[in-house]
């Protein structure tokens, strides 16, 4: 990142320009961070305080609200549901896509090109345009529990990009790796899981991060498929604070903080990996 040395021909002029650039970046960073700080501080105030003294610090730091959200307003349950959907669909996606990616890059069969372009075509189909027919198909099939239908939706729509990224990675693994194992009598399937799959680790980290964040942050698919409170994800759980509690802002704000807190903590710990994970999809496509 920090590699280009500006040639110091006219140092005076450069200092002025860089001063303005740094000032601009600081303002921009403030525009990102200040709303978050404002939401956090406001969430600790009472409703009245938010209204009357928006700029001051909370008079009494009311952390009790957070406990109440978890115990009384099901935020704990919503969190576990989000974990369920994200973990299950990501694990399934990775295994299924890794095998498919191997077959689509290494194995030799007639329909390979066709299947690959079919899956790539799926990249262009947005999940939004399929939710109505999927909802209808699942009510035809009589599958009412989102634990199955919604997980399937998440896996299916993660497949195309995951297969694309993993195929690209497998192409770069030398053939000799599995050849020697196969020579010694191992089957392709066994060679794949014992030799190739472990080698795919960097690409798998990327797709896990990418898909986990996509599923974790999803709202629309959950909204369509989940109707009962006990099945709701965090995103659906906090969305209702806008309507039902529209007079009680401090709870809405505390719910936002509760949802963002894990994201921010994870981001601060592994920010570079997350940035790579989220953007790899764009650069591959």
């Amino acid at each position: 990142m920090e590699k280009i040395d500006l040639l110091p021909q006219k140092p005076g002029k450069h200092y002025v320009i860089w001063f303005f650039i740094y000032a601009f970046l600081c303002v921009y960073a403030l525009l990102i961070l200040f709303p978050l700080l404002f939401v956090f501080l406001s969430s600790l105030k009472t409703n009245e305080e938010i209204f009357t003294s928006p700029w001051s610090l909370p008079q009494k730091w009311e952390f009790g609200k957070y406990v109440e959200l978890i115990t009384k307003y099901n935020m704990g349950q919503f969190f576990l549901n989000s974990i369920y959907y994200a973990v299950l669909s990501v694990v399934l996606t990775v295994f299924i896509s890794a095998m498919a990616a191997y077959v689509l890059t290494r194995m030799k069969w007639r329909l390979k090109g066709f299947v690959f372009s079919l899956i790539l075509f799926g990249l262009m189909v947005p999940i939004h345009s399929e939710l109505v027919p999927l909802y209808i198909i699942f009510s035809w099939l009589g599958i009412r529990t989102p634990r199955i239908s919604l997980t399937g939706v998440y896996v299916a729509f993660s497949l195309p990009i995951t297969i694309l990224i993993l195929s690209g990675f497998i192409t770069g693994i030398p053939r000799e790796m599995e050849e020697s194992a196969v020579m010694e009598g191992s089957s392709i399937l066994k060679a794949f899981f014992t030799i190739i799959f472990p080698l795919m680790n960097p690409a798998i980290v990327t797709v896990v991060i990418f898909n986990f964040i996509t599923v974790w942050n999803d709202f629309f698919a959950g909204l369509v498929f989940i109707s009962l409170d006990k099945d709701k994800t965090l995103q659906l759980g906090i969305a209702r604070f806008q309507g039902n509690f529209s007079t009680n802002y401090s709870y809405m704000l505390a719910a936002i903080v509760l949802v963002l807190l894990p994201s921010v903590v994870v981001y601060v710990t592994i920010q570079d990996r997350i940035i790579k994970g989220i953007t790899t999809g764009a650069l591959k496509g």
Partner: protein
Amino acid sequence: MEKMLTDRKTILIMILPALLIFLLFIPIPAITSIFLSLTKWNLVGTIKFIGFENFRFMIFDDYVFHIAIKNTLIFVVLSIILQLPMAFFLSNVISRMRKYGRLFRNIIFLPVTFSGVAVSLIFYFIYHPNMGLLNNFLKLFIPGINFPWLADSRTALISVIVTLAWQWTGYHMVIYLAGISTIPDEILEASRIDGANEWQITWHIIFPLLLPVIQVSTILITTSSLKSFDQIFIMTFGGPNHASEVLASHMYTKTFAQLNYGYGSALSTVLMVLCIVSTLLLNQLFKFSKSKTEY
């Protein structure tokens, strides 16, 4: 080895799970959606085949659909204007920084990791007429201001578009940064030695080399604008009086609030076709401009 690579059983075992799930959840519903778009149906009664009536109604009579299309176009154009030049500027500046570049990049990228719902709720609060951050800030200059940003038909849509720009500019900045980092240092060094200034380097070297990445981000911003839903649903619900309605929110209301599954399917089909066509069209457009600039 060669023989084993053509083994049908192995191929089937490894490809079938992906292929079955893919077919069941992507092409089959797409075909179902096209079929249902030719019907009138409320999910429990009988399916009534009505030909192209849904599409006729959509094009000639459904004024909400017209607003949604217009708003979607505004969404695409304003998002591109608000996000891409800023992302290009930020990436050029940050890639030249010797210190703190990574820090600024990571701060600006932070909202990308947030969910649409969380960001929408934050901005729902920021835009709040009485206690929002925006009006509280403006009060320092205009006493007593309590403008309802999200409840006024003139500002509802643009307020949502600004929210998305706040969240996503960092994303485009990072993919440009990745693009810039693939440009060999020697090219930049050589042109500096030849006397090119930073402005010239940006426009004559970095910009042309970044075009493929700019293409990707233009396609992404277009399709994600077509699909925008979370922010509208949370912040305005398409209102006031449909002023901020978009395709996905209209589809949701028609299908799940008014239980018009046939018409909802027709809107889904239109959304899908628009996404695919705009992706292909933009790809062609960039290919065309590339072949013209290569000499």
